[in-house]
């Protein structure tokens, strides 16, 4: 599952339309989704983003593999309006803590560091991108997912020549809309990574078949999981039918141990 986090509805709207996301909930935070992705409109600022992400994660059933994408507008001293920036470093201005989202060469066309500030800035003191949520996004996303599944992209909405007070909802939606092809590239890249994660680390279907058929204690579940992994590693002939006749969990484990001991080890 891919989760997209936006601060404002006008940032989210073009994405919701592009991916045909349906409203799922409006209770605490507006949440939109389709089969493959969820989008939450968090509100402005770090606390809102952290709360929204925790809400989305819990609401989604604390899934094992989630990719996270923060999309929003930001300011920069010189970057032109509408420029999409892939963020390579996030600094929280208050705490001076840094985070480094994963780098993918196909997404590095234009990249920059970013500073998350408490209040909108009128002057851009460094050559970083300025905004108000990404540090909380990084800190929270890293609680749920590895850094390889986390990306931050920002669209420039203000600079020294186009000040922040001139930014309105229509402009924001237009800027995001113009960048939908590049946003889609980022989403495809993240989804590809996510797919590889799931393929590598998802539990075997045999594990869930075992759980359905017999009762395992927590300790037995741990043994079962590792035995099934070893079985997959050592044998091309892994099939539930080979253990389906077992009468209880204990005999499943015993049978798996026997099957594994018969496997040859050759490189």
């Amino acid at each position, binding site marked *: 599952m891919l989760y997209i986090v936006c601060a404002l509805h006008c940032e989210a709207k073009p994405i919701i339309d592009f991916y045909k996301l349906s409203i799922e909930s409006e209770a605490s935070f507006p949440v939109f989704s389709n089969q493959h992705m969820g989008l939450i409109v968090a509100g402005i600022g770090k606390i809102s983003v952290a709360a929204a992400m925790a809400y989305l994660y819990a609401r989604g059933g604390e899934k094992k593999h989630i990719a996270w994408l923060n999309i929003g507008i930001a300011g920069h001293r010189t970057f032109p309006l509408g420029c999409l920036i892939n963020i390579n470093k996030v600094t929280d201005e208050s705490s001076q803590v840094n985070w*480094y989202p994963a780098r993918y060469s196909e997404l590095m066309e234009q990249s920059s560091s970013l500073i998350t500030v408490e209040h909108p800035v009128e002057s851009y003191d460094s050559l970083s991108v300025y905004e108000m949520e990404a540090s909380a996004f990084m800190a929270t996303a890293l609680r749920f997912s590895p850094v*390889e599944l986390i990306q931050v992209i920002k669209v420039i909405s203000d600079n020294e020549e186009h000040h922040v007070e001139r930014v309105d909802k229509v402009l924001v939606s237009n800027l995001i809309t113009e960048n939908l092809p590049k946003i889609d590239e980022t989403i495809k890249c993240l989804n590809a990574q996510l797919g590889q994660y799931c393929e590598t680390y998802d539990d075997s279907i045999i594990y869930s078949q075992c759980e359905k058929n017999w009762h395992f204690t927590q300790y037995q579940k741990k043994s079962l999981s590792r035995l099934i992994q*070893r*079985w997959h*590693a*050592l044998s091309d002939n892994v099939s539930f039918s080979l253990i389906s006749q077992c009468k209880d969990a204990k005999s499943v484990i015993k049978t798996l141990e026997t099957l594994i001991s018969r496997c040859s080890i050759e*490189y």
Partner: protein
Amino acid sequence: MISTIYIEEEVIDHPRVKEILTRFKQAEIIVCRHYGEIFNRKSQNFRFQKKNPALILAKKQKGFVLPAPDAYAIGGEKNFYFSHMMNCIYDCRYCFLQGMYRSANYVLFVNYEDIFDDIRQVAKQNTDHNCYFFSGYDCDSLALEPVTKFVENALPLFDQLSNSWIELRTKSTQIRGLLERPVVNNCVVAFSLSPDNVVSSLEEKAPSLEKRIDAMIKLQNRGWPLGLRFDPIIHSDNYQLHYTEMFNRIFSAIAVESIHSVSLGNFRMPEKFFKNMVKLYPKEKMFADTLVSKNAMISYSEFVEKEMMSFCEEKILEAIPREKYFPCH
């Protein structure tokens, strides 16, 4: 190809950093405060990072030279190791680095001179002993030499240290620098060696056995002392066949006079590292073999260990005198 380079603020103007950057003009440069911000952070996946590791250029602050683990001895009275780099360009499934580090990015400490000062100091404090300094503990000593030029910088120091040896441990064929310079008699170029089937199955991205033997022959012809490292030996149903074939090839190509030392060791891994490795590679055949835990170390069963060690030991001692043989326990 390295596409991202992180640089610690403190070394951004270091001449070695500037030189390295000239080799990677297309790379994205990201300044960081401390390499640990990237390298030590939780929530990263070594296996996925290994597909496209970044280079981190940093300054080592302390612990330049450390006492070596006992198993590292190859005839020295005092053994030390140092790490100018963390991580390796190869992807060997049995390597402890993947269980020890959270990140697969390469960290290169560019302040070589601080390491050299410490080596000089340690050698001076131990003038009554012969000292061995091992360089390939946290990385491959030669694999990134064209970029780091660490060995090129280190060898003149060992030319001056009469009581000290340096071991370069490698699977690499990056030996051009060694072939182009005078031999340093107290430098052992030690090759980690495995049978073809282990190389192709468990040593991803590493040169073939044949290429390693070719590199050793070239170094032998120039007079460099060679080390042969059969550590870890990997169990399989037909290991005797594979190891016999490998020993025959190596000992028919390398003259005993060129061999400084041969070491042999079983697969052994701190349990904590092993658990991390299994998490990264849950369906890895090698980790699915019958392994046992003893004193917080994972290894083959005592029976398998003894059988493999004595089999390989016998083959090695058919080819070299016992004083050149160093089993790792």
